[in-house]
C-alpha cells in the first residue's frame, strides 16, 4: 500500500481543493509590491547609525568565520562572573511584513556567510523594550527568526544559545547565537568533535555594552562551550558550557541542537 490509483477519487479531491479560484487580475502587481518592500528591507539592513555604524561595518569584514585547528591556550584573566539569569526566547516573526519599511527596527550587521549553497546574515536589533538585545535573521537559511537575550545585562557573562536549523532541500546546520560583554572581540566555539570555530563579537548600536556573535556550521553539531577573547587573543574567562534555555521544542519538522557537553 503505497500510492493512489490514477482513477482514485482521492487524487481528484487533492487536486481540486479550490476549483473556483481565479486570483488577481495581474498577480505580478502584487509580487512587484513585495519586491519593492524587500528592497526597502534589504536597505534597512544597511541602516547603520553614525559611530556605531563604523564599528559594526568594520567588524563585518572579519565576519567570515575562520576555523582553527586547536583550542587557544590563553589564560583566564579574571574569574568567571556569576551566572546570568537564564532566560532567552527564540521567536519566529510573523510572515506578514510591516505596513511600511519605516516601521522596521534598525538591524545592525553582526555576521554573514554561506553554508552549503545557502547564504545567511545575522544582525542585532531591539524588537521591543523587553526584547532589547536580539539577533535577527531572515534569509535563505533563517525564516524571520530572532533570538533575544532578555536577561543579559551590561557586564554580564557571555551567554549563548544553539539551534539545529533544517530547511527543506538542504542539509541541517547548527547555529550558535550569543552575546558577550565588552571587551570581547572574538569567541571560540568548541564542538564535541574537538573542532574549534572562531567568530567575531561585534559592537552595534543595539546595545553599546554588548558584543553580539553568530556562527553557523554545517551538520548537527554538539556545542561543548563558548569562550570569549579580547583583541589580543586573551581569554576573558573560562569556557561557558551551559547554554541558555530556548523555546526550541523538538517536533516532526524541527529539531533542537545538542548543546550540552556530551560525555566522552
Amino acid at each position: 500500500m503505497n500510492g493512489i490509483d490514477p482513477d482514485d477519487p482521492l487524487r481528484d479531491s487533492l487536486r481540486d481543493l479550490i476549483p473556483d479560484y481565479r486570483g488577481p487580475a495581474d498577480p505580478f502587481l502584487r509580487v512587484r509590491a513585495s519586491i519593492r518592500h524587500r528592497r526597502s528591507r534589504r536597505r534597512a539592513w544597511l541602516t547603520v547609525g553614525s559611530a556605531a555604524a563604523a564599528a559594526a561595518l568594520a567588524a563585518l569584514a572579519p565576519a567570515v568565520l575562520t576555523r582553527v585547528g586547536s583550542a587557544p591556550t590563553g589564560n583566564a584573566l579574571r574569574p568567571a562572573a556569576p551566572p546570568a539569569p537564564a532566560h532567552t526566547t527564540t521567536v519566529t516573526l510573523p510572515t506578514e511584513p510591516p505596513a511600511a519599511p519605516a516601521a522596521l527596527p534598525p538591524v545592525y550587521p553582526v555576521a554573514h556567510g554561506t553554508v552549503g549553497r545557502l547564504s545567511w546574515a545575522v544582525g542585532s536589533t531591539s524588537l521591543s523594550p523587553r526584547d532589547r538585545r536580539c539577533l535577527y535573521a531572515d534569509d535563505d537559511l533563517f525564516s524571520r527568526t530572532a533570538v533575544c537575550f532578555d536577561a543579559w545585562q551590561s557586564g554580564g557573562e557571555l551567554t549563548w544559545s544553539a539551534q539545529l536549523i533544517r530547511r527543506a532541500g538542504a542539509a541541517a546546520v547548527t547555529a550558535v547565537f550569543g552575546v558577550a560583554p565588552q571587551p570581547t572581540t572574538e569567541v571560540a566555539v568548541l564542538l564535541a568533535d574537538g573542532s574549534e570555530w572562531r567568530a567575531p563579537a561585534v559592537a552595534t548600536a543595539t546595545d553599546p555594552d554588548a558584543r553580539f556573535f553568530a556562527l553557523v556550521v554545517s551538520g548537527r553539531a554538539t556545542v561543548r562551550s563558548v569562550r570569549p577573547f579580547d583583541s589580543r587573543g586573551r581569554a576573558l574567562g573560562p569556557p561557558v558550557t551551559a547554554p541558555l534555555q530556548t523555546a526550541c521544542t523538538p517536533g516532526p519538522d524541527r529539531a533542537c541542537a545538542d548543546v550540552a557537553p556530551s560525555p566522552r
Partner: protein
Amino acid sequence: MPDRDDSFADFVRSRWGRLVRLAYSLTLDLGRAEDLVQESLAKLWFVWPRVRDGSPEAYVRRTIINGAISASRRRWRGEEPRWELPDLPETGSATAADAVDERDWIRRELAALSVLQRAVVVLRYAEDLSERQVAELLGISAGSVKTHAFRGLARLRGAPHPDGPRPARG
C-alpha cells in the same frame, strides 16, 4: 532591467494559479496561500538571473514549502484545524452540494495531518512527484517520504467520508 522584468512577469502570470493551489493545499487558507506565493515569488526575483534558465519553478516551490513548514512552527500561530464551513446554497444542485461536501471533507482531513505529512501527500499524489523528488524537495529521506505518505493516506482513507466508507486502494 526591462528584459528581466518582462520574463519574470510572464513567469509570475503563468504560474500564479498553480502555485497558489500548491500553497493552499499546504496552508489550507487562501489568504495565507496567496501571501506565501507572493513572498516566494518576490524572493525568486532577486535570484532570477541565476535561476531563470534552470528550474525557477522548483526554486519557488521549495520556497513555498519552506514557508508553509516554517509558518506551522510559529508558537502563537501553530496548526489550528479550524474550519468555518461555508453555508451551502439553498438552491444548489445535488452535484454541486456533493462537490462542496467532498472538498470540505478533504480540507478537514488534510488539516488534521501534520504539515509534513500534508506536504508529502500533496506533492506525491496531487503534484505527481516521485518519492525521490519529494525527498529532495523536503530535505528528508525517501524512507521518511514513504512513511509520511503511508500514514497520511491511511488517515485520509480511514476518515469517515460524507458518502460513506471509501474503498481502500493501493
